[in-house]
């Protein structure tokens, strides 16, 4: 049995769920597990879902529960089951700030996600242009000092302009 009310309702642990989503999730579980059902239902699950619904039915309650979840690392997080919303990485509670290299490593690890949530097509087009220019240069002036310079310029252009096509990093 999980002590995460979001998990009890099969919802992602997000503070910005709307009332209707929470109510629909509870109705779905309650209809399947209510003890009045001919098959006896599932009292334990029904009880857990109902308690979770009581906790999560208002925006304030969700905000509170979310805050508690993030404040206590012992609580678990469910992965997003809603394809219409962005997934959320597991939140951590208050604790020592990670060392700078770890922060940087985390930022690097997040780049694929930032690309996915940004404008990947534009990024691909920019990358293709930079690559095409570089290849054309290598083909037209191989071994000339201008070749590495132009490739540097194309890379720099890609990095400077492509940044805006990435989703903002966490914390921004």
């Amino acid at each position: 049995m999980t002590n995460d009310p979001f998990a009890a309702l099969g919802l992602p642990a997000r503070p910005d769920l709307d009332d209707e989503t929470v109510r629909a999730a509870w109705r779905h579980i309650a209809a399947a597990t209510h003890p009045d059902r001919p098959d006896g239902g599932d009292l334990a699950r029904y009880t857990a879902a109902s308690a979770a619904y009581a906790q999560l039915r208002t925006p304030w309650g969700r905000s509170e529960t979310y805050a508690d979840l993030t404040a206590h690392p012992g609580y678990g997080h469910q992965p997003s089951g809603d394809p219409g919303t962005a997934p959320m990485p597991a939140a951590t509670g208050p604790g020592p700030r990670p060392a700078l290299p770890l922060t940087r490593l985390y930022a690097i690890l997040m780049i694929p996600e930032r690309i996915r949530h940004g404008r990947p097509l534009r990024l691909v087009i920019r990358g293709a242009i930079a690559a095409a220019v570089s290849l054309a240069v290598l083909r037209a002036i191989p071994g000339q000092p201008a070749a590495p310079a132009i490739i540097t310029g194309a890379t720099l252009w890609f990095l400077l302009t492509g940044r805006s096509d990435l989703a903002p990093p966490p914390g921004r």
Partner: protein
Amino acid sequence: MSIWSWLKLTIALWLIRKAFKAAGWLLLAALAVAVWPLTLLTATGYAAAWLRGWPPARLTRAAAASLAMTAVYLLADAARQHTWQALTMAPARDWAHGWHHVTAPLAWRTFLLLVPLTVPAGFALAALLWAWRIYAITSGTAGLLASAPYTFDARQWKRQVRAARNRVAAPGAVPLLAARRRIPVGGTIRAIGHRWHPVFTIPAAACARHMVIIGATGCGKTNLMIRLWAGWYTAASAAARDGGPRPLLVVLDCKGGPDARTKANRTRRLLHGAGARRVAIWPDEARLSLWDIPPADLAVLLYQMTDTGQGNAAYYADILQAILTLACTAPGGPPASTADLLQRLNDGWLLGAWDDGYHPAETATIHAAARHIPDIALRMSTLLGRLGPALDGPGHLTDADAWYFILEGTREPSVAEAQAMALTELAAHAATSPRTEPRAILLAADDYSAVSRRVPISNLYERGRSLGIGVQVSAQSWQGLGADDDERYRIAATADGGIWLMHTPYPQPVVELAGTRRVLATAHKLTGAAWGDEGTTREQRTWVADPDLIRRLKVGQACYISHGAATFLQVARPQPSPLTLLPARVPSQPAPRVPAPRRETTPNPDPGLFTFDDVFGPGAPRD
């Protein structure tokens, strides 16, 4: 001299002048063709600036950034060449080689060989030419028609707006927080006096001072304010991680209504995304305790919240204040709730508390005012009853990371005014109380004019300034900023965090505060119906923030005025990172206690009370 001779001389002089001019142009054309790679890149840079409405600074920065190419080129060339002469002559050799056999592939090769040098040089030259063009057009010395300065400006404005809109459409261009704790607000359309940056940012410290936002309904004021709140919160959270005080955002939505709920929910979602853990919406979902205020301040507040009137009423006002002070500062401690205060407002209780032999003056006051105490109790009961239970606790301002207070200023102005007074006092208490954790506080009042009858915004400002609280005030118009011009000017003139103007039909007073700048105006002499080539140029002063431009601002466009300079920008819609942010982490602070929400009556948390009808609704078919 005969007429014929004079005519010949005149024609000869004209021809010489024209020949010199033509020779000059031909020389220039020959030079342009000779250095064609540079010409090509200069033309490209110039055309880009013209089409996108860039300022020359944009091209200069592009030239500076492309110097990296030049550096790599020089390093690579230095590795190949053994003498300095060979190194310096290499580009000239490459250029000269391209002229031996002029073919398309060879021209392409020559162009590529020179790119590391021609890109920075070409962009720098384009910046110079573009700056000269802007100067010549705006000062009236260029252009085919007398109207050239206006048409040029209007065309460039359209292009600048289009470029700014495209810029803010990129997901990562305008995050909630930029480097060096600056708050990005939107894409820059035009900067006058401020340094131009593609994305306009303000320092987070500006939000911690005083800021004024003026804009008509539907012009995107809410977007701007929410962006500033989220940006400030993100910046302050980052500062908190480095040991600074935790942020506390207090928003007073003084107009209320259903729109306020929508706005509150949007603010909450964004703040959660920005790392806020507890965002409380008052009075719908959370309560506060008015009784946390220190007893003496509480007495003054209760007195101020009561409409006491003028003239003879002043006598009763004094009695009211005296009794409230006695009730709040009684030796047994301050009241803990409305019921507790009302219980104290009778002479029996007050005498019981004060008549201990040590407080003769207080006892005498109670005796003197005894016949008025029931009236005072009635007034207090009415006042606190109208305020509702949401200020009767439990709950503390510091329990949450952000509070969104909805005051029904349109529907119940007098109640909202009293609530605003109480909430402002609670914020002041949170800022100054030595017993609570120090917090970085931003107090934002949206449409404060709805409740400013009894608490002028200037008071709010002055209190905020003295307590170190950032105060942000918005109004729908200049007139809505205060009761009279004196107060309006006092508010606008002390907005050291800057003034935001959105579409408003009367921007003149604020524009005057922004000041003027010097421009050159050229008058041309008319020769008949034609525009002659003689005239005068004189220096004139024009507004830094053009009021006509402000009147014509579209939805989402704003003008930021600060330090005698103005920046027009396209405000970006605030969105948190879709990667969902981690909550604010404060190493040394324990997680704050859960603020007490209003007790919910339904549904009962006891799961056993849920029935099948709750699930399917009444009368739903069963199998």
